[in-house]
Structures are given as C-alpha cells and as structure tokens.
C-alpha cells in the first residue's frame, strides 16, 4: 500500500518534472516535450492501474492550479482549451499502454512497450484529442486530424524511446518494471 502510493506520487512528480528539465533534444535538434513520454512511461513501467492513477494524480494537481504542464501551464483553463481532449486521454493512454505490456508477454518487453505506447499514447490519445480539437475549433474530425498529423512522427519517436528506456530499466533494476511482475 505505502509502496504503491509512493510509486504513484513519484511518477506523477516525474511526469511534471519531465516538462521542466530544460531542452531535452532529439538527435536532429527538435525539442520535444518529454511530458507525453512520461505518460507512456508511467503505463509501461507501473502497469495499467498504477500508471493511470499516477497520470490522474498529476492531472488533478494541474487542475487545482499547479503550473505543471509543459511551458508552465496549468489550472482549469487548459482542460477547456482546444488541446483539452489530449489531457483527458492521458490516464486512458497510460492505462492502455500498461495493459498491453501486462497481457502481451509472448513478445520481448521492448516490442510490447512499443506497440502499447503506439496504441495508447498515439492512437487512443489522438482520437480523443482530435475530438476535443474539433469541438473547440468547430472543424470536422477529418479537418482536425489533418492539423495534428505533423505531430505524429515525433510521438512515434517517443514511443521508440519509451520502449528503449523500459528495456534498459528492466536490465538496471529487473524488479522495477512492475508491468511485467
């Protein structure tokens, strides 16, 4: 119980801090918000339930007014803005990522994390994010999707990074990848 609460709280804090660490850049100089990486990582490492709870806790603190989102944003406004759908999708994205890693054990860890992060962090997340965007901007779903397409390659790279990180974590601390225990 105490261990789980501590893990959930520390991962919520980790998601917040991933947005604060200055300038993590990809190989070709594109700055990424490591925050959505943190969402996928929470699911992949903590598993579906704890991962989703960590993200929910993080969003709760954003909602009550702490500036924990990338760029120091926070408060209730971000949930009502055009990208609010993405925020609402995050707990489910972490849950789905963790669920796939937990259930799909016949493939190597890295492969299941990559597929989980793609389905949770990209397919599910964008589906909900695009619905929110189309509501806020008064555009059709297809039009809203076209606005978001440019961000998908970056997120595919993040899914790869999350897979690599989870595999390294399982080597450094075999007991730390709770989704496979």
């Amino acid at each position, binding site marked *: *119980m*105490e*261990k789980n*609460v*501590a*893990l959930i*709280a*520390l*991962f*919520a*804090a*980790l998601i*917040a*801090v*991933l947005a*604060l*660490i*200055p*300038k*993590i*850049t*990809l*190989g070709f100089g594109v700055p*990424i918000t*490591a925050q959505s*990486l943190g969402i996928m*990582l929470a699911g992949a*490492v903590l598993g579906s339930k704890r991962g989703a709870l960590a993200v929910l*806790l993080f969003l*709760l*603190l954003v909602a*009550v*007014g*702490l*500036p*924990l989102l990338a*760029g120091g*944003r*926070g*408060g*209730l*406004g*971000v*949930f*009502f*803005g*055009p990208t609010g759908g993405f925020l609402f999708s995050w707990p489910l994205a972490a849950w789905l990522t963790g669920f796939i890693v937990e259930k799909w054990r016949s493939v190597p860890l890295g492969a299941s994390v990559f597929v989980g992060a793609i389905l949770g962090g990209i397919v599910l997340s964008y589906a909900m994010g695009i619905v929110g965007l189309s509501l*806020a*901007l*008064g*555009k059709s779903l297809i*039009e809203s999707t076209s*606005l978001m397409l440019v961000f998908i390659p970056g997120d595919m790279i993040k899914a790869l*990074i999350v897979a690599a*990180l989870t595999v*390294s*974590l399982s080597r*450094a*601390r075999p007991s*730390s990848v709770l989704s496979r225990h």
Partner: protein
Amino acid sequence: MISLSSPVKTAAHDWPAGLKLAALCVATVGLFYIESPLILAGVVTAILIAYALPGRAFLRAGLAALKLLWPFIVIVAIWQAVIGELVQGAVIVMRMVSAVALANLVSMTTRLSDMIAVVRWLTTPLRRFGLSTAALEIAIALVIRMVPVLTNKGGRLTESWRARATRRPSWRLVLPFTLLALDDADHVGDALRARGGLTSERET
C-alpha cells in the same frame, strides 16, 4: 512551488470554491449554445472587465495564461478566411477564448487549499465504499514536495552530462532520472510505513 492562484486578492477569493467550479461547468456548457456573435462579444467584454477590475498585475497574469490560444486563433482565422465565413470564425474564436478565460479566472481566484478542500469533499463518497482517502491526500502532498526535489536532481544530472559531453543533453538522461525517482519511491514507501502506514483506520 507557486500555484496559479493570483496573489492579488479579489472579492472572488472568498466565494466558495465549489460554487465557482459548478458555475464554471454551467457557463462552459452554456457557451456552446450561444450562436450570436453579438452576445458572444458581450461575454468576452464582460470577462475582460472581470480581468481588469482587480488591477493591472492581475490583468497581465491573466492574459499571459491565454497566450497558449494564439496558434489556434491564427489557424481558425486563416481557415475561415479561406472558406469565406469570417463571422462563423469570430464565433468559434470568441467561444474558445471565453471558455478558457473563464476557467482560468476560477483558477486565479481560488486558493490551492480551497481547491484541495473541494477535492476532499468530492472524494467523500469513496469513504463510504471503504476506500481510504488518506492515501490520496498523502499522495497530493508527496507530489507537491517531490516536484522540486526531482527538479533539483534532474538539474544535477543535466549538469554532469554537460561536464562530460560536448553534445546537448539527450533523452538518454531520462533513464538515470527515472531510476532516481524509483529509488526515491522506495525510500518514501519505507518511510511512510515506518511512520504508521496508510492502512490503519483513521478518521481524516
């Protein structure tokens, strides 16, 4: 850590937080039923006046929080200009700005402690099902404490990277950083247990 709640005290700071949140939900749903650009322009003006009343510092902080909307305003403006429906574009933009500005206004005029009191009130039904809300309250406090701790550790990792490498810090830093966080979670978990744990039945 600084909350987004405004240091400029307003009368709205003393209104019940739950009431403000409920009113915000009603108002946001209501916004989607307003089709007239004139009424929406009135709503935007009223919100601007509400931002301006507590003084210049409050207005500046409030407008800064709305900056994230600029890219979307530009997208909608260009889009609507291309399809030649500028009035509809104005309605979309004013509705979007009003929704975010209203929510932001509630955040700015509500103290963190009042918000957390609402969270505690909202989770009371859970206690009836035998779930402990003490865990949630400890977790909230832990995150607020651990964000600066982890920021500090992340900063030190970045510095040691810079001391050794000529390239800029990459995503590889996330691995030792996550390990540090997991180790901290171990220690915090032990410390919580040593101090009586969370499972005991206590009235909060």
